[in-house]
């Protein structure tokens, strides 16, 4: 069975190659091919899953070694894969949701003449993401990490004719570079500390490394995770990334790629377990982002940006859980999977709404759509209930566990983290209710688009509604399926380890308080957007609203501190370069040039002077030889 692992990656990779190199003759069939390759990968994933279920819990990890990728003495990197419960969970999520979104894109991108290329990029993404989660060493993981970054860049900027899309792609690329530096430094640190960067040997040798080293590696890994998963302080790119086509937002910027940071931290559990300081920083980053994203999500009128804020916030939950250590790893991944379902569903729903509304994204221009798009309404609604943690739905189980684990951290930290998580749950309920109300309820506030076409909202084609329905099932049932009988915990526990903290309050209390804040959040939203008519043009709003609309001034902060600071730095460097470095270089060049010009005059074209030169040269040669003997 382990020989199938490489095929998981090979299928979508082949798809990408065929689609991107195949040329125009594949335009007609390209989207089917792309979907097929993704589906093949999913099929192999399912086969491996069934095989793995048939084994005993401690015999489930499989390895496949293809060849030595970088054969340098003392620096060995293998093209080798490791498939365990954790990677398989990701494989199923990536290829499963990936396949659904491929199907969705068939309808969504129908009128785009570059649809074949779009599917090629999607395949490329799936291949790179699978490589990321299947790699058995950090260097290969880094390869996949950069691969998804590339695919993300290409897909955010897919509509490159729009300057905003091109800029957003560049922004995502640049911000991610900062995080990638963290990953590369972490790998270098590992190599200097352990002499290797393969998972097994590194984790096995963690005990021999000093805590300081582990903390440094952990923090660098966290930096990488922050970049890829849009966590504070590297969060600024995710909102702009919504410029990409909606299926991309659903697959890459909600369900899979942005959760790579969580994977990285959970995968590196052994390192973080040995570095409590790094873990603390992880939880702080998670907690801050969880509030940050939620607050931003409250103020956005662009449906996709509101959802993007929500994504950031939900990943904050996962990072928080991952930072809690063994009491949180499993729940981080569980929330990641359920979030993959409902957030992908929500994005696809948003795409479906936009599809029916002439690509309008301003929720203030929606309203009352529930009767026009019943399927979208129902699936979106189920996703909504799941994300706010309505009892019995997916989000309820997974988020509740994280809040519980946060309290179980113990001490003041536990109270603070738990409190933040609870507050986040309230805000989640508020902003998601707001999205729901603005879009599907209330009066019709539809506006004609720029060319004066009034919108005629309609339900989307089957290729789009089918994936939404499937994902809605996941949103409803996944959480319960995982939690009842601790199935998910038993599944992942051999990889991540599991521990029970000592919650200062009982699980029931946590659940009840979650319910209370949920009701409060929904009620406030209802009071603000349900009972009163919603103005088409956004009101000025409070200070906090205005700040949240501007993403809590993240870009202004970056501009003032990084861009301006960078400009000053480069300006002074340029000055030094001009006056000092160039002075030396140009001086050298000028003197070489001057010398050259003078020596050149010796070459006067007269054979007689050449002969003199030869004669003189010979004399010197003889003299020097004799002199050497004399000395």
């Amino acid at each position, binding site marked *: 069975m382990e020989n199938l692992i490489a095929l998981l990656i090979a299928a979508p990779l082949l798809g990408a190659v065929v689609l991107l190199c195949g040329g125009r003759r594949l335009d007609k069939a390209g989207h089917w091919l792309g979907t097929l390759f993704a589906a093949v990968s999913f099929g192999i994933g399912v086969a491996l899953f069934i095989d793995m279920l048939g084994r005993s819990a401690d015999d489930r990890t499989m390895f496949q070694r293809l060849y030595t990728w970088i054969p340098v003495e003392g620096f060995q990197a293998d093209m080798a894969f490791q498939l365990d419960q954790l990677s398989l969970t990701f494989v199923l999520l990536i290829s499963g949701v990936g396949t659904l979104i491929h199907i969705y894109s068939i309808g969504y991108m129908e009128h785009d003449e570059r649809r074949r290329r779009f599917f090629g990029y999607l395949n490329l993404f799936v291949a790179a993401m699978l490589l990321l989660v299947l790699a058995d060493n950090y260097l290969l993981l880094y390869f996949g990490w950069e691969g998804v970054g590339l695919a993300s860049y290409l897909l955010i900027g897919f509509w490159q004719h729009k300057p905003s899309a091109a800029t957003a792609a560049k922004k995502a690329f640049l911000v991610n570079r900062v995080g990638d530096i963290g990953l590369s430094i972490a790998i270098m640190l590992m190599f200097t500390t352990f002499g290797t960067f393969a998972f097994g040997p590194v984790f096995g040798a963690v005990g021999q490394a000093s805590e300081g080293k582990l903390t440094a590696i952990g923090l660098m890994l966290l930096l990488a995770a922050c970049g890829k998963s849009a966590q504070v302080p590297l969060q600024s790119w995710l909102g702009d990334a919504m410029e990409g086509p909606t299926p991309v937002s659903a697959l890459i910027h909600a369900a899979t790629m942005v959760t790579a940071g969580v994977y990285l931290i959970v995968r590196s559990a052994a390192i973080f377990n040995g570095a409590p300081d790094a873990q603390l920083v992880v939880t702080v980053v998670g907690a801050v982002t969880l509030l940050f994203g939620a607050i931003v999500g409250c103020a956005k009128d662009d449906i996709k940006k509101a959802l993007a804020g929500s994504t950031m916030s939900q990943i904050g939950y996962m990072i928080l859980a991952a930072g809690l250590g063994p009491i949180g790893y499993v729940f981080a991944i569980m929330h990641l999977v359920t979030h993959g379902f409902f957030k992908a569903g929500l994005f696809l729903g948003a795409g479906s709404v936009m599809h029916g509304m002439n690509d309008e994204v301003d929720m203030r221009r929606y309203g009352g759509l529930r009767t026009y798009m019943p399927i979208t309404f129902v699936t979106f609604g189920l996703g909504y209930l799941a994300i706010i943690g309505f009892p019995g739905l997916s989000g309820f189980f997974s988020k509740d566990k994280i809040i519980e684990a946060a309290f179980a951290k113990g001490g003041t930290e536990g109270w603070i983290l738990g409190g933040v998580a609870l507050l986040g749950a309230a805000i989640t309920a508020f902003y998601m209710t707001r999205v729901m109300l603005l879009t599907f309820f209330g009066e019709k506030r539809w506006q004609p688009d720029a060319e004066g076409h009034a919108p005629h909202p309609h339900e989307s084609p089957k290729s789009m509604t089918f994936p939404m329905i499937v994902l809605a099932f996941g949103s409803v049932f996944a959480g319960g399926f995982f939690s009842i009988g601790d199935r998910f915990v038993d599944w992942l526990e051999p990889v991540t380890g599991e521990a029970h903290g000592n919650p200062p309050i009982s699980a029931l209390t946590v659940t009840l308080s979650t319910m209370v804040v949920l009701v409060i959040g929904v009620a406030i939203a209802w009071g603000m957007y349900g009972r009163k008519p919603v103005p088409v043009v956004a009101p000025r709003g409070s200070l906090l609203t205005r700040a949240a609309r501007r993403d809590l001034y993240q870009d202004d902060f970056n501009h003032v501190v990084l861009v301006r600071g960078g400009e000053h730095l480069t300006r002074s460097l340029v000055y030094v370069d001009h006056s000092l470095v160039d002075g030396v270089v140009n001086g050298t*060049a000028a003197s070489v040039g001057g010398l050259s010009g003078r*020596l050149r005059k010796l*070459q006067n074209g007269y054979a007689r002077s050449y002969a003199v030169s*030869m004669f003189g*040269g010979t004399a010197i040669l*003889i003299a020097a*030889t004799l002199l050497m003997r004399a000395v």
Partner: protein
Amino acid sequence: MSTATAAQALLTLAANGPADKIPAPHIEYAQLAPTLIVVGAAVLGVLVEAFVPRRSRYYVQVFLAVAALASAFAAVVGLAAGGYGSTKAHIAAMGAIAVDGPALFLQGTILLASIVAVFTFAERRLDPKAHGNRVDSFAAQAASVPGSDSEKAAVKAGFTTTEVFPLALFAIAGMLIFPAANDLLTLFIALEVFSLPLYLLCAVARRQRLMSQEAAVKYFLLGAFSSAFLLFGIALIYGYAGSVSYAVIADVVDGTVAKLDPALASTMGNDALLLIGGALILMGLLFKVGAVPFHMWTPDVYQGAPTPVTGFMAAATKVAAFGALLRLLYVVLPGLRWDWRPVMWGVAIVTMLAGAVIAVTQTDVKRLLAYSSIAHAGFILAGVIATSAQGVQSVLFYLLAYSFVTIGAFAVVTLVRDAGGEATHLSKWAGLGRRSPLTAAVFAVFLLAFAGIPLTSGFAGKFAVFKAAADGGAGVLVVVGVLSSAIAAFFYIRVIVLMFFSEPKADGPTVAVPSPLTMTTIAVGVAVTLVLGLAPQYFLDLAGQASTFVR
């Protein structure tokens, strides 16, 4: 092929009284096959000139030359495969010629380079037809005065100087013997055999004939001058050792053999003779490789000679001359290492620096390449000075790499033309990359190889010689070498910048579409440059296996 030892034996016989019989010299024809094939083809070529009708001479000559060179190369490969490069290496032809690894490697290099060079000789598509006849780079009738009526008549009649092919073959034959010569007289004869045809070849350019003739006269005068020094050096060494044979001289230098000849008792063993004679012979060889201060002919001759000849000369002469230099220093004078090494250090340093520095202000692409070849001579000298097997290996590899880059680069120069023939002034190359991206890109590859940028053969070669020099204790030399490489990189890159980042001139040159012949030359040049750059190990190993001189 009479040799000094044979001659000496005769003299001894004569002194002892009347001889009954003269022993026939023993010649290993099979082992000298590469040279003999080329000489034979050259003689045949002369007969072709005499007897074959003018119309078909060109084809017969080209075929003959290429076939001879190819079969000579096959013979070299055969000898190498037969172990003559390693286990069976020995001195053939009564002590006159060495058949060993370095000789075979260099002969192979010379032959391969010559084949592609002959392709450029045979190119007839670049110039527009004159009176309905295709013309090559050579004068219609070399003997007619430039601009005279007889020249015009010759052009009208469609004459071509097909004699260049036998001339080239004679030169190649001399070059094949030069690095294999195992006594000083053979060395001198080989030198003259390849020099004289080259002087002639330099004089027969079709365009700018006066410049071409001037170049040839300068080359001839200075070449004769240097030959005189060389010959004088040989005489002095004979006075010192009583023999011209490398092995005997080496033994006398080492002190293993004393007093050979009573007739020379007063001079033998006189170190002044040895040192002065050695310096003079070195000078003769350094003249051929174009080392400073014996380099001054190089720019003028490179510029004036027909470009195909320049490419051939720049590549093959350098290979042959460095081969002879290596053998002289490693076989004859290793005992004098402590005398010649410091001197050669100085020559190498001056050569590298002067070549690189003066090239900076050149405005003609052929002169630029000439100075570049001077700088490269300096780099190769750095490898020569290493006095180790590694040094020999690196020099052999460098010569292989360098000769193909050079021939390729000069072949590209023949393509860029305007109304006056080749447009060699650099200002005319501005913006070439916009108009003819492929040609400019190919030239850029060659320039990068000259500059020694990684992934080209130039890098591998430079790395090898510098490494050998550093291991041989010549760290200072390596530092100077790297500095000159930096200076040299400036003018190579400047040409690339000029080609790709300058606006093309309105009346700029056009790139002629060559026949498959020149295309092959250029393609082979690029291929060798890239292969030796990407996977140098096999060829380094080959050069390493061939790095032992037989004594």
